[in-house]
């Protein structure tokens, strides 16, 4: 490694464990040079140390707060029927029941997992290129399903993921109002279709074949037509195809 390369590596990472870099450091001149770059990084570290009132101890209250929130949510159905103060929320829920003709029976664990996974992997919703068909086919084969062109033509991402300890399928395709995320969990059971929502997203969870399907889109996205579309498009392989 010559001096120019050595200096470049020092800029990138003076603590690099690259063999050639470590070997070059045996040279006392280069060793001195590295010390200077380490000083610069130390200055950077000082510069990044900002004063703040942030108290990490407050984070330790999160489990307790979430337990309390969960307990509140569990009793909110009963309260909403009794308290006029909850009339807006109740109206919204009632409207959803009318629109979907479904009884809303939340499946908190599945819905939460899907929402969490969506947020944790938000970057895949930004993909604008079409997902390659040659990669899609083998993936779908593993799940024993096929998806019609109506969806594959608009598909931006497809991958395996873990939801509730089940290997599931995570798909992103273009909806009417933005990216739509579809989770397919083979083997999962959903008693009744239910709605889910978080911030600017809402979705629907339902049973489809021998698995659970979750569709999540932005608030403007019409879920009912999407549900119909997915039910028609996502079908099990025939014995011949399998």
């Amino acid at each position, binding site marked *: 490694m010559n001096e120019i390369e050595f200096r470049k590596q020092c800029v990138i990472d003076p603590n690099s464990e690259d063999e050639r870099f470590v070997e070059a450091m045996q040279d006392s001149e280069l060793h001195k040079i590295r010390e200077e770059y380490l000083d610069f990084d130390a200055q950077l570290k000082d510069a990044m140390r900002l004063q703040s009132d942030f108290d990490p101890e407050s984070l330790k209250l999160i*489990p307790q707060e979430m337990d309390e929130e969960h307990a509140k949510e569990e009793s909110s159905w009963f309260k909403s029927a009794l308290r006029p103060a909850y009339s807006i929320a109740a109206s919204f829920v009632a409207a959803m029941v009318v629109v979907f003709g479904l009884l809303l029976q939340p499946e908190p664990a599945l819905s939460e997992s899907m929402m969490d996974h969506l947020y944790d992997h938000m970057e895949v919703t930004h993909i604008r290129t079409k997902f390659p068909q040659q990669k899609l086919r083998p993936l779908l084969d593993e799940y024993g399903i096929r998806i019609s062109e109506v969806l594959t033509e608009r598909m931006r991402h497809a991958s395996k993921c873990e939801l509730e300890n089940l290997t599931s399928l995570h798909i992103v395709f273009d909806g009417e109002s933005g990216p739509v995320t579809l989770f397919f969990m083979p083997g999962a059971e959903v008693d009744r279709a239910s709605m889910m929502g978080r911030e600017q997203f809402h979705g629907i969870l339902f049973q489809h074949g021998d698995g659970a399907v979750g569709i999540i889109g932005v608030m403007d996205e019409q879920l009912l037509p999407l549900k119909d579309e997915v039910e028609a498009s996502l079908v099990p392989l025939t014995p011949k195809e399998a």
Partner: protein
Amino acid sequence: MEKNDENRVMKKKKRQFERLVDLYAQDIHRFALWLTKDHHTAEDVVQEAYARAWKNLDQLKDESVAKSRLLTIVRNENARRFQRKQFDLVDIDNTQVTASADSEPENRTEISIMRKAIAALPIDYREPLVMQVIHGMSCREIAETMDLPENTVMTRLFRAKQKVKGSLTETQSSNVARLYP
């Protein structure tokens, strides 16, 4: 008996969570602060990251993975917030530097210049730089966390430091700047 077991499991889970707070919260907050450039947003983002960590604690048993996971949640949360609303956030410029007690005044000036230069970096450069400097992460670890090729991370780190160096050169206030011809 079962109730006792449940309590024991819950206590263990809480201890594990508190350990994640003790180990990483301060640095995760610094990362969030440099990403969002706003104290309140940074705190919200860290709060959200730890709330997710609590929900998915079973997947975070390996503490070395936990840090990277927390950073990813912070990055995603920041991207999501940015997408929803274009913040006009510059309060980091008004933030006081916690200078070492033995810092000379000229060093404090340099640090102030560097801090502004870091804040002005494009986020693509700022993110890996903060990961390296605050979290001591290697290029490979940063590449894995950001889902980028290692060479891309190296290029971004190089350019980020060059830009910070450039700001020092412009003011001609630092001997350190001469290290980067």
